[in-house]
């Protein structure tokens, strides 16, 4: 008997079930199909501007930096300024996201843009988040050629573009959008919920930023 | 679940084994407090112990037998009151669980549980007492015993009554909600561990600067008093009922006639 059959048989024996019970099967199928929220905290239930403000407050509370620009056309300049202020090189790596490609990069001719996944030698990475979650200041990034996951983790500084329209109050709203985008029951290889730059408190419970992931997380909210 | 108590509730006093054996003063203080709140009190002769030592040592058969005899002795009363959060918690929370699979005894256990209270919680939560007529000149601090605190929700009640005692200064204890390391048989089975825990407690007690340590459970008090004495500290230890009843003539816990 396979390990699978042994374990499933033990589970069923312990529960006193066969696995064929119609009521149980339909209860499970229903729950999986409906994906109903349980309890959503009031905190995130705000209008668009309220969500942007809360997102910013929560993200800054976990040591991310946040700036807001009026339009996507302002992003290259914002990036160039951030890199200058942080004494970072004027070069970054980004994926094939059309939202990044369509930006007026010619406004900042000194910026160097590298494409594709990161191999660990990039100082700065740029990604587009598919959503933000106001209740905890969390970014939602998905893998793929548009935004390779390595860019989220290998560079020292991670800059993330986020449309203000995509800031949801809670995670549940994001899951629903993902189902619409990727299909029910499906998910991209990696979905990263990122809440601040990486950190560790493993040495005497002292919180230090910049463990294995980025030391700095800069979020540019657009719109 | 708040009910209006009868005008002169008939209370069965569950003395608890430690009070019975080690510190009768606490029992008499409880009687005084209850009588002042116009209760009629009975002390059923059939009581010995609530059965926790057996229950917590895995001896369920003996624990059940003891539970049944306690129920038999105490179910006639309007209320069962014990000067201990631990023992009251045993009657109130654990008897129904212990007898859950017994169709005959479970309802009886549940009925009694609904009428069982720790002393201070009974005075305040059930009888609505908000002040006592007592005097105690000096500073005290209060340790929240675990069962009373977490099983029965006793935290503000004793402090409220203590604030009504003339002359008494209540100093807060750091980590008052942290266990003292008693734990019934734990303190002798794991003596080193228990000691490490109570050491921290006595340091906090000393830091409070209070002259007297109060608590609602004699087991915890004997543990803390025993450690305070071993460390040569001057802090006195008493059951909270003694101070609330104004009955502090007896030597403090662990002190003799010569002190």
């Amino acid at each position, binding site marked *: 008997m396979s390990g699978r059959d042994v374990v499933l048989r033990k589970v069923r024996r312990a529960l006193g079930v066969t696995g064929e019970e119609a009521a149980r099967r339909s209860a499970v199928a229903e729950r999986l199909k409906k994906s109903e929220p349980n309890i959503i905290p009031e905190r995130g239930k705000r209008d668009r501007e309220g969500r942007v403000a809360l997102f910013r407050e929560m993200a800054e509370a976990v040591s991310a930096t946040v700036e807001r620009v009026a339009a996507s056309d302002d992003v290259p300049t914002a990036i160039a300024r951030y890199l200058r202020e942080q004494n970072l090189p004027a070069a970054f790596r980004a994926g094939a996201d059309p939202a990044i490609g369509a930006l007026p990069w010619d406004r900042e001719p000194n910026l160097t843009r590298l494409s594709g996944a990161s191999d660990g030698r990039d100082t700065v990475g740029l990604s587009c988040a598919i959503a933000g979650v106001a209740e905890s200041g969390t970014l939602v990034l998905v893998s793929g050629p548009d935004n390779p996951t390595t860019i989220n983790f290998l560079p020292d500084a991670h800059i993330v573009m986020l449309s203000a329209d995509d800031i949801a109050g809670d995670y549940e709203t994001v899951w629903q959008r993902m189902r619409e985008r990727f299909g029910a029951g499906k998910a991209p290889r990696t979905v990263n919920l990122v809440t601040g730059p990486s950190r560790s408190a493993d040495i005497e419970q002292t919180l230090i930023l910049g463990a294995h992931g980025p030391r700095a997380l800069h979020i540019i909210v657009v719109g | 679940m708040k009910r209006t108590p009868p005008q002169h509730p008939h209370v069965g006093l569950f003395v608890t084994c430690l009070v019975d054996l080690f510190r009768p003063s606490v029992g008499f203080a409880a009687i005084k407090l209850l009588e002042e709140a116009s209760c009629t009190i009975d002390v059923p*002769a059939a009581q010995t112990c609530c059965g926790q030592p057996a229950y917590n040592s895995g001896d369920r058969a003996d624990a059940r037998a003891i539970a049944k005899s306690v129920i038999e002795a105490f179910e006639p009363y309007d209320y069962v009151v014990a000067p201990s959060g631990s023992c009251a918690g045993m009657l109130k929370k654990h008897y129904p669980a212990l007898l859950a699979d017994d169709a005959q005894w479970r309802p009886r256990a549940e009925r009694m549980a609904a009428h069982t209270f720790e002393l201070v919680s009974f005075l305040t939560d059930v009888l609505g007492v908000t002040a006592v007529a007592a005097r105690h000149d000096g500073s005290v601090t209060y340790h929240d015993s675990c069962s009373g605190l977490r099983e029965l929700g006793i935290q503000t009640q004793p402090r409220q009554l203590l604030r009504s005692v003339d002359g008494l200064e209540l100093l807060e204890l750091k980590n008052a909600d942290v266990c003292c390391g008693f*734990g019934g048989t734990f303190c002798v089975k794991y003596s080193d561990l228990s000691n490490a825990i109570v050491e921290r407690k006595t340091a906090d007690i000393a830091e409070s600067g209070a002259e007297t340590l109060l608590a609602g459970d004699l087991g915890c008090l004997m543990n803390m008093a025993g450690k305070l004495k071993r460390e040569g500290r001057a802090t006195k230890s008493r059951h909270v009922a003694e101070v609330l009843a104004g009955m502090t003539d007896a030597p403090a816990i662990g002190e003799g006639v010569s002190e």
Partner: protein
Amino acid sequence: MNLTADRFKDNVRVALDDDQLQRALTHVRSNFIERRAKAVDALPEFEALREAARAVKDHALTHLDLYLEAYETRVAESGGHVHYAETAADARDVILNICRKAGARTVTKGKSMIAEEVDLNNHLEAHGVEPVETDLGEYIIQLRGEVPSHIIAPAVHVNQDQVEADFRRVHTHLAAERDLAEPTSLLAEARGVLRDRFLAADVGITGANFLVAETGTSIIVTNEGNGDLTQILPRIHIVIASIEKIVPTLEDATTILRLLARSATGQDMSVYTTLSTGPRRPDDPDGPDEYHVVILDNGRTAMLGTEFQDMLRCIRCGACMNHCPVYHAVGGHAYGATYPGPMGQVLDPAIFGLKATHDLPNASTFCGRCESVCPMKIPLPKMMRHWRDKEFERGLSPAPQRWGIRAWAFLARRPALYRLATGLMMRALGNLGSDRGRFQMLPFAGGWTAHRDLPAPEGRTFMSAYRAKAQNKGRKT
């Protein structure tokens, strides 16, 4: 793993005498507790979330067979592989086979208590595969040849100067005169050393906080980002998780996520919550080519449907140990089994057998603080008591203790005899102790008097004094 739970009392003695350990434990006693309290207070729905989370897990557990099936179907659809392991040995074999097939020489690892439970590292090493722990805490203890002393802060027993000494001892390729005086420089050094290992690894192994049936997704929660580098850089990602990690939907996982970090570290959310579904997709520029999930039983199905089922709700936040006076006193290694603290005192006997671990469920004052902070409302003291019942039934507790309890119960069930015996004894003790009011030594009371005085009884028992008073009153009226 080196199971020493059968020497629990000796372990306690050693831990109490260990000054370094005692120094390190001061951080547990303050930081975790304050941070959790602050985070919980800031979320008004916390209590309601606890109830909802409990309902999620209870539902998942009573339908576990069906959710496992749904989960593995989704994993297969996304191109991944599910392996079931009935025992720790099965899990080790499955993982070693995957590594061998891949010709793997080094394996990076995210923090996984399941990997500790099945003693994976020793097995891999013994078969020529080098495991590299990448969580900073796990890395530190791997250098020290130790096991975790805490389920979320594995190196909580180690002080900063000890870490510095370990780094200097092991990282001999770095300049001897480098400055490691600050935690930041220690972290930076670990980051640099491990970055190379991440990039060179053939296989990455992580645990899972959740397995989501709806999508066939495994979720891990970390702060450092090591779990992510572990799974996206090597060619193969292996997830090792126990059966009870299953939740039905992303919404259900979310409900528990809102409790997890708050209960653990006092964060609203950990920095990285990562959802992994299958291997990289055809046009993905990064991510693993293979994705395997090893689902472990190892004693858990024997808890299902019993008085221990509630324990399977545990989400490994560590709040119980962070609030435990026993853990505070001795730290995690004294328990001598994979899982320390209250959750371990319930879980270890189920995994490693009650005989070898019977001290663990006993070493509790039942103060109940663990249960009061458990986000999943697991009645930990109650379940420790259930283990004590089993121990008593099977006669595993020391005979003198068993007979002591039985003798005492014999008396307690006979009030008249009890009264006579205790009355005589208290009178004698009262007379002996009346002068000083306490005993420093007493025959048969060494467990008490080793560390504290025993307050002397007042002399007369309450029952006899009360009867005498009542009779007196009767005569007067």
